[in-house]
């Protein structure tokens, strides 16, 4: 690094740091404004000026008579995200184990995973929806939407596990075997602990990508909306600052989930450093 540290602070440095901090402002500005506006007074509208400050619009979200009753969609989204999180972790971890050893057809699987990532969300959604219809079934948030979410979370999960396993020294595992560990013991006491930080990452991606997914869910949620679908459906026509209130709440919820993941990673790392 020494060579880089010595770089003298040119005008370009100030240009880059200005761009960087402007970008952060650009990144967080709109959401900050939305958060402020969600505390809009009872008589206030969707934009400034603030007509006083209140929690009225937050209370409105929990008011069952409000046209977008967000409570059930939120519940569905959380349950679905938890299921997707667990499925993504298990499926990606197992696939990671197989990819690590290499097998015939691994390239095909790799490209399928990439295809799943880049496939147009509208195609996935329409395709799953039509598939249910052709089987005379009705897609629902826990069936068709679950599948649609997997096509989005699994590529991230599998690619993360590929990255984790490519840094995994196979000699660790061989050493465990040589010391007499069974396959199961090696998995439990060597492979899983070493890849645990990666698995936490997969969990974070699995949960948040599912919780926020809109496009792939759009044709397959059936009669009951998930939260992002409900949000899009009330935007425009029946917008009140309640929309911002739910936006603020769901953002705080996401930040808590992200925070929890990072605390978990931190604890794992601390334990590791302490236990070594």
């Amino acid at each position, binding site marked *: *690094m*020494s*060579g*880089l540290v010595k*770089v003298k602070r*040119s005008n370009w*440095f100030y240009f880059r740091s200005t761009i*960087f901090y402007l*970008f*952060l402002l*650009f*990144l*967080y500005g*709109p*959401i900050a*404004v*939305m958060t402020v506006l969600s505390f809009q007074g009872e008589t206030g509208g*969707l*934009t*400034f000026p603030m007509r006083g400050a209140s929690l009225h619009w937050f209370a409105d979200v929990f008011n069952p008579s409000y046209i977008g009753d967000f409570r059930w969609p939120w519940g569905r989204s959380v349950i679905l995200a938890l299921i997707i999180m667990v499925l993504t972790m*298990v*499926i990606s971890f197992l*696939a990671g184990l*197989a990819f690590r*050893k290499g*097998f015939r057809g691994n390239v095909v*699987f*790799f490209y*399928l*995973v*990439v295809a799943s990532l*880049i*496939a*147009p*969300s*509208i*195609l*996935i959604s*329409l*395709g799953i929806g*039509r*598939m249910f219809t*052709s089987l005379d079934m009705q897609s629902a948030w826990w069936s068709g939407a679950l*599948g649609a979410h*997997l*096509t989005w979370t*699994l590529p991230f999960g599998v690619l993360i596990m590929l990255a984790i396993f*490519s840094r995994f020294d196979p000699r660790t595992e061989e050493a465990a075997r040589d010391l007499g560990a069974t396959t199961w013991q090696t998995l439990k006491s060597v492979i899983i602990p070493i890849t645990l930080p990666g698995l936490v990452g997969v969990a974070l991606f699995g949960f948040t*990508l599912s919780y*926020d997914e809109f*496009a792939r869910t759009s044709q397959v949620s059936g009669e009951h909306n998930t939260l992002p679908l409900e*949000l*899009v459906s009330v*935007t*425009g026509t029946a917008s009140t600052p309640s929309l*911002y209130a739910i*936006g603020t709440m769901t953002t705080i919820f*996401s*930040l808590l989930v*992200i925070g929890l993941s990072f605390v978990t990673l931190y604890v794992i790392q601390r334990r590791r450093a302490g236990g070594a």
Partner: protein
Amino acid sequence: MTQLTDRLQRYSTALQMTPLGIALLLFLIGPIIVILITSFYKFNGFLTIPDVTVKNYVKLFTSGLTLDNYLETIRIAAIVWIVTAVLGFIIAYYLVFDVISLRAKMLLFLLCVVPFWTSGVIRMIAWIPFLGKEGVINRVFMSIGIKDEPLEFLLFSEFAVILSYVHVFTLFMVAPLFNTMARIDPSLIEAARDNGAKGWQILLHVIIPLCKPGIAIGTIFVLSLTLSDFTAVRLLSGANVGTVALSISNQIGSYNFAYSSANSLFLLIVLLLIVGGIMRLVDVRKQL
């Protein structure tokens, strides 16, 4: 004995791949096959009728609307790609080479990527109070006297859509570029400097070539997300923008599943060709 272990090994690999295989078969390959079949169906204005007709494709490739939609989508994607690539490069460069403390580096990087794990829909909606006729920007402009009248093009326009793409997708450039840039051996830069290369020469002949894989991965993300998005267009374009994915979504809205199937299948092929081309240039798998 070794033969038995070998066989078990192969068996375990198959078992480990089974869940992923089933998921991809059910929710990726299955739907694509259904779409392929549906694209040859007939739509009589009310119902989708099983048939084998190429009418949908004939309509798709002869309709001026298809061309308009693709031109508009490609133009938007090109703008978004250039802006996110330049912005992503500057940000990654700043994080990797300008920020010296490792702790600060990680913290600032996290600040850039945290929004990825929050709701994209909310982040698009959050632009509405910002860009509207009575929004923050117009208020600021009018109060400091830059403009007398509110700017109308800010919200419900192509501008709003592009802005929100840059907002949501730039981190897809930042993350892979950060990853590849951080792996550049500093001694290479030193060597270039020792040999008398100027700052811009180092950038052009050392850093940018070494960043190609990062740019490639970022490009794959940004292009595939931009080309297939209809959420931002629906929320922020105010029906002033006609992109491919939005028109597919509208065709689905009017129950024309046959035509929208043909249309979305063609979009998939376009995307696969673009991404396939990029992956031929750069071995993406090596970057993991």
